[in-house]
């Protein structure tokens, strides 16, 4: 069971503000998702190796060769908050 406190903590990790009323509703929803995943636990996976990728490929590389980067104005095109070529964010600790 996910508690209200856990919802608030997860909200904090995601930097999303969740107020008391919302956290009850989220706890309920998250619990139903967990219940659903609980059904998967019923499958017997004894002796089955974990699958991280469906395709059985390994070792995909590129050579250490420089390709062109983006012009600075394109990099900053999606933000209103910039200063001297930097992104500008609020005060961060």
């Amino acid at each position: 069971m996910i508690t209200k406190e856990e919802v608030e903590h997860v909200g904090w990790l995601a930097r999303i503000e969740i107020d008391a009323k919302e956290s009850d509703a989220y706890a309920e929803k998250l619990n139903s998702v967990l219940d659903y995943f609980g059904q998967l636990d019923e499958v017997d996976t004894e002796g089955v190796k974990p699958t991280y990728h469906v395709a059985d490929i390994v070792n995909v590389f590129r050579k250490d060769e420089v390709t062109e980067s983006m012009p600075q104005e394109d990099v900053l095109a999606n933000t209103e908050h910039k200063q001297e070529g930097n992104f500008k964010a609020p005060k961060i600790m």
Partner: protein
Amino acid sequence: MVYENPDGIRIGLEVHVQLNKLKTKLFCGCSTEYHDSEPNTHVCPVCLGLPGSLPVLNEKAVEFAIKVGLALNCSIVEQTQFHRKNYYYPDLPKNFQTTQYDFPIAANGKIIIEGEDGEHVVGITRAHIEEDPARLQHMGTIDRSKGTLINYNRSGMTLIEIVSEPDMRSPKEARRYLEKLKSILDYLGVFDGDLEGAMKADANVSVFWGDRVEVKNISSFKGLERALVYEIMRQKNHIRRGGEIVMETRHFDEARGVTISMRTKEEEHDYRYFPEPDLVPLRVADWVPGIRETLPELPDAKRERFMEQYGLGETHARALTTEIKVANFFEEVAAKVDPKDAAVWVSDILKGELNYRELSIDAFTVEDIVAVVELVTGNKITEQSGVEIIRTVLDDGGKPQDIVEKKGLLKVEDDIVATAVEEAIAENPDAVADYLGGKEKSLNFIVGKVMQKTKGRADAREAREKVLAKLNE
């Protein structure tokens, strides 16, 4: 003698090394030569975390990582993969860091350092590959910041995080460990330690075999020792006053030389690591034999060889093998002059003058130091003049031979010294009487007069011997 470690100090280090000798970043083709560039000019959709972009792993980065692992006597993993370490902080625009988690590329190694009681083994727990985050610059002071500027040029650079066992027993051993690590990495040619951000360390420290405290934000060798000395003192004082050390993370404030508790709400499991679906696993164990063959002679082996081949003492051999460039320079000099003279002039004199000016060995040529050594050992100039030539070359440029001429440094002929000695004695009867009456100091006065007469070109020791011989006639 065995070091007792009376305060039960244990120090482990996590060192982040930027593999800045790679041409491109870890997962994209952006150039790594951003150090003197405008902000946000070495970025692309991948290292900027734009939607739809896909990472592709730099083959050479994996090769370098294996090389580092082997040099640290680690075993290399059979198969590995990358994970996402999730956290929301704008130094990584994707909201996660791509790193290695359960299968680091290298593990279970060791290096040998000069410990409190001779050679000391420090275990290497693991070394893994991850991406470097962006550089954040706080506007104004950290507590009165008006905002933060973000430059993604560094974002996505290849880092190797090297985690040691808590085997260091003093701040000095921790510094020696860091120095040894830097030396090995320098030999491997995988990084330039002089570049900003090339090496950073977090330390975990405990006293009286107790719980450990993590100290973050250490960015220099000097800073490491200061941070550790402070933190050990703090923990000891705290315990003496009846307090208890709890596991926590502290931040080193370099300007004030103190560590400050950082209250973090994030714990390890909050990073919610999971396998990176955009990168396929690596199976690179079969690269190991080939890479092992490319390993150069490492510092320990080179030091042993220098002692054996050139008959050097350990101090010289150690000083000459810390940096690969210095070691190579020395060997070129030692091929032309007596290796023991080469060791004295390169290690004791030239390196001292270079350090004083914060210059590297590149600032001097083999040809010039050979010329200086030959002038001195050929008895053409005094040792002091040899040092003066080195200083002049470094400060004003020029070739040793020209400086000798321009400054008139050639030693004066013996008979000129002899004449000067005779004159000095004849002209200073009081000093002579004083010396003969037992005043040792008066001898220095007479020798000083001889040096004056020869304008400093006589060898002071020879002049002293000649004065003595004359007075004792």
